Every structure is written in C-alpha cells, then in structure tokens.
C-alpha cells in the first residue's frame, strides 16, 4: 500500500465534486420537508435528471442545456408526486417509493443507446486572482460552474427560509398546515411549489453525476445518492448550513474510500465500497439518539396529508 500516493490537495478538490450531487438533492429535499412533505422519491428524480441531462447534452452538445433539461425533468417527475399526494391525498411514503421505482425504470428506458458515450465537458471557471493563490486557489477556485451554483443555492435557501416572508409562510405550512390554512395561505399550492423545487434540485444533482462526476451514462448510476441525500437532511436537523457540512462530509468519505482503493489498501474493495452506506447509518444513529433534539427540529406536519375539512 502506498498512502503517499494520495495527494491531500487533489483529495479536497475532488471532495467538492463528489459532494455536489448530494448537496443539490439534499438542499432541494430540505425545502420540501420544511413545507411538511416527505418525498422519498429523490433517488428516482435524480436518476431521471441524470438521463435527461445526459441525453440533452449529448444531442445538443451543450452541457448548459443538459442541466436545464435535468432541472425540467426532475421537476416534471416530482409533479406526479405532488399531484398524487396533494390532490389525490395518497400516502407520501408509498408514493415516494413508487416515484423511485418508476424513475429507475423510466431512466433506464430513456438511456437505451446512450451507454458508452462521452458527454461534452462542462466549463470550468477559474475565478480571477483567487485561482492563482497557492494551495487554496487550486482547491477552492478552479471548479466548474455547477459547484459554485450549488453553494449559492445553499446560501439562497438559507436566506429565503430565515429572512423572507415567503420562507416564513413555507415554514408555517410545514409546522401546522391547519393553522396556515386558517390564516388563508394556500397549503396545497405552496407544497406543490416546494415539491417542484425539490424535484428540480434533485434533477440537477443527478445530471451532475452523469455529466461531470462520472461522466458517462450507466443504468442505476446514482446508486443510492438520493437516499443519502435524504439521510443528510436528517443529519442537518433541517438546517441549510448543516446540509452543506453533511454533504461535504459524505463527499469526503466517498473520495477517501476511492483513493484508498486506488492506493491498494489491504481492505478488499467491496468492504471499502460499503463505507459510505455504513457511515450514513452510523450518522443517523448518532443524530436520532438524542431524541428530544431530533423531535424538536423536524417540521411538525412532516409526512401528514392535508385535507381541508370545512
């Protein structure tokens, strides 16, 4: 084994790339859950975004159009969830599972004929002056634009939930839909908008995997990233800045695990590949062990159907 082959600079830089898909999906799901909706279909929306983005980028030659298509594809699939749970009042857990099962099938259907193709490269942005800084410049300021967009998105969501009136209304709907309804807020409309936002973010996250991180199309390529994103929302106790922390932590684990594989550590590859999933479980256990805190932070109406019985 040759641990010196692992370059810490490259490690941190690739950590940001590995974390970005989970970060995008998790910040979207955070908004959905803040509105009181539990959408377990993140995995399905991510993989649908991955193929929509990939196919569009390959056909048009433009990664930007690819990401736009992924945005639209994820949102479109989430609309199915939104209509079923908000209008037809179906069980959110079951519908979310259905979304994942359907998304996996649909994406593999759409992806026929796209395996083994390389997508057009996504542009890197070297932030002037800062990119030339020693050490830090290479780690932080020489990424593609999606990495920066995801960071802006986290900041935006944080500010939106904390400082705007619309954010307050959204949180009110998530805490007590009956009270929000009594105050005259359109619970169903607000929730569907939140679900659409979550779907679009998950779609972007998926496209980042197929267009930048891998970059290729294979069936089921998100391999649980959507579920890890759901776990990160719990880890973050529904706070935007901590979603960032959680996603980068998991990105770190994923990258370190890959680097250890490459360095030929004595642990078999299969056991190293288990690491991200086992650590997710461990983190969930630690977070939920403190029951009072976990219960305090979860939106009070999370997962409950809203039916205005006048």
């Amino acid at each position, binding site marked *: 084994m040759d641990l010196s082959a692992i370059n810490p600079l490259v490690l941190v830089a690739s950590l940001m790339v590995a974390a970005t898909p989970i970060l995008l999906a998790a910040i979207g799901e955070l908004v959905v859950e803040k509105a009181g909706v539990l959408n377990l279909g993140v995995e399905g929306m991510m993989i649908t975004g991955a193929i929509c983005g990939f196919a569009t980028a390959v056909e048009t030659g433009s990664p930007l159009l690819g990401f736009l298509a992924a945005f639209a594809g994820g949102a479109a699939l989430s609309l199915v969830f939104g209509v079923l749970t908000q209008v*037809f*009042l179906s069980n959110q857990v079951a519908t979310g599972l*259905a979304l994942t099962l359907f998304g996996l*099938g649909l994406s593999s259907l759409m992806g026929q004929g796209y395996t083994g193709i390389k997508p057009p490269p996504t542009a890197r942005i070297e932030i002037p002056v800062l990119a030339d800084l020693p050490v830090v410049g290479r780690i932080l300021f020489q990424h593609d634009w999606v990495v920066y967009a995801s960071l802006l998105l986290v900041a935006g969501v944080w500010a939106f939930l904390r400082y705007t009136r619309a954010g307050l209304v959204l949180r009110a709907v998530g805490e007590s839909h009956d009270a929000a309804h009594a105050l005259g807020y359109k619970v169903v409309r607000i929730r569907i908008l939140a679900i659409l936002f979550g779907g679009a973010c998950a779609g972007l996250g998926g496209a980042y995997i197929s267009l930048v991180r891998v970059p290729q199309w294979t069936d089921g390529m998100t391999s649980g990233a959507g579920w890890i994103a759901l776990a990160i929302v719990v880890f973050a106790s529904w706070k935007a800045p901590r979603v960032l922390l959680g996603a980068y932590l998991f990105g770190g684990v994923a990258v370190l695990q890959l680097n250890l594989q490459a360095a030929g550590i004595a642990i078999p590859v299969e056991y190293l590949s*288990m690491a991200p999933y086992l650590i997710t*479980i461990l983190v*969930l256990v630690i977070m*939920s062990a403190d029951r009072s805190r976990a219960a305090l932070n979860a939106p009070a109406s999370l997962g409950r159907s809203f039916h205005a019985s006048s």
Partner: protein
Amino acid sequence: MIRLEKRPEPSRFWTAVTPVLAVLTTMIAGGVLFAMLGKDPLESIRTIFWDPLFNAQFADFARPQLLVKAGPLILIALGLSLGFRAGIWNIGAEGQYIAGAICGAGVALAFYPLDSWIVFPLMVLAGALGGWAWGMIPALLKIRFGTNEILVSLMLVYVAEQFLASMSLGLLRNPEGHGFPGSRNLQEYPAAANTEIIAGTGMHWGVMTAFLAVIAAYVLLNRHILGFHIRLAGQSPRAARFAGVSPPLLVAFCLGTSGALAGLAGLFEVAGPAGQISIDFNVGYGFTAIIVAFLGRLHPVGILLAGLLMALTYIGGELAQFMLGLPAAAIQAFQGMLLFFLLGFDVFSNYRVRRVTSEVA
C-alpha cells in the same frame, strides 16, 4: 365545484375495485408508452398478459415460470405487508433476500458433499435466520435510538450487495470454477437442491412455503391478538398505546418477520431457480414486492393474486423482449406506473367525491 369528503372508514367496494381499475389504466398508459417506443400497443399488451398463459407455443414453458417468479414475490410481500399495516416501513427486503441466500448457500457449501436429508432443512433455517438478522438491524436501531427504519433498511441493501460481491469472489467461490466468480451450482448437489415438488409445474418448496405463509398471515391478521395489534397500531397509534400494544415489540416482530420471509425467498431462489451465489444474483424482487404488497391491498389473499399478476408481467415482459424487441426497462417503468395509478385511485376508497353547488352565504 368538486369536493372531497373524508369517509369515516375506507369503502370496501372501492378498496376491492381500485386494483382492477389501476391494472386496466396501466394497460392503457402502458400501451401509449409502447406505442411511443414504436411497438404495436395491442400486440405488446397481448404478448405480456395473454401469450404466456394461453398461446400454445409459449404456454408450456411460461406457465411453470409463473409460480417460480410469483413464489418469492408473494413471500416477501406478505412480510412487508405486516409492517406496512402498522406503519413500519421495511423497504430493504432486497438486502434481507441477499442475506438469506448467502447464509443458506453458505450452510450448503459447508456440508458439501455430504449426502444427508438434514442439509436442506438446515439451509432453510439458516436462510430464515440470515434474513431475520439483517432485518433486525434496522429494528434494533429504531427501538434503541429511534433511527428511521426506511433509510437504514435501504442503506443495508447496498451493503448486502457489496457483501454478495465479496462472497461470490471470495469465500463462497467455486474452487473448481477456474477462477470465475460465483459459487458451486447447488442444483448439482442433490441434498441441497430445491427441486420441483411436482415436475413440470414450477411448484418448488419456496412456492409451497409462500402458499403456507398466505394462510398463516391470514390467520394471524384475522384470528390472533398480535394481528389485531398490528392493524390497530396502523389505524390509530394512540388507541394502540391505550390498548397496551408495545411499539418496540411490534417493530421487532414486523421487521424480523419480513426479514425472515425475505431471507427464505432468497434461500429458495439460490437453491432452486438461480442455483448459485453470483454477483448479479439479486434481480429486484425485494423492490417489486413493495408494489405487490400495495396492489394486494396488504391483504394475504390479495397479495397472492397480485404476486401472480406481477409474475405474469415479468414473464410477459421477457416474452415481449424476445418477440417484439421491447426493452426490459419498459416493464420496470410499467410496474412503477401501476403503483402510481393504484395510489391515485385510492382517493376513492378514503374519500367521497361530492359535487358542490355554490351556496349563497
């Protein structure tokens, strides 16, 4: 203006009718999907739902397959339905299925080449225990720490898949397999093989177990206090607590039982139709069983019928792939669609749709 009015309890009529409506709607929507793929919709639907059973050319091969595919689906879905009724969501049956198969095959390979009647019963026991243990991980974490069982059971699927790869490349690899991944073929080891009970029907010990499990689940849910507690906990958690139902016990029972049943399904599969532990041993029965459980209305008899129907779409899908070149993924999307329509139509079971003429206030 249309308004939904909550029913005091779900309508029995609509509960029975929605699965049929959902299947019919899925056939129409599936036809549209197949037409978009450039296939003749009517011919595709006929190939999937009719030809495997009644076309003289394929029926001899396809009919036994119906039981072979339905067996594991029914067995897993029955276990899942217990938890789903009580609001305990085990969605990691795929992992428990793998764990059962590895443990069962491990026992068989440990005894190889001993020829004794004891081998097969021990494998069955090991398979059930393996699945049970895998299912008890989320159960114990939920009881002790309040961890979300949905996420933990799902994460364990990915862990189990990696473990399966490690086993078929390492410990359980066939020493006479010239270095190829995968274990010995249990079909060629008579004491461990899960053979057909009646030749030519597809009826192996796993299918038999599935049928017995249907009866056991029916008795449990309708005639036993534990079954009553499961239903009570799902319908009214608060009332259940007053009635003295212990939530930890329920969690352990539901996740443990569904794990054991999924483990059994895995064992019968590895000793029978699949024959060996290999990297691609699992084919998604654990996830399809979720659809089966809902389509069967979480009712044992319903699950039996839903399992047979879902098995039919698998076989018909393979036939359509072979005859019409329909992609395999189309069937997966088709099955997902079925669950959507079912959940959507369920609004009629729980709500009454009323036309409201606007009144003057």
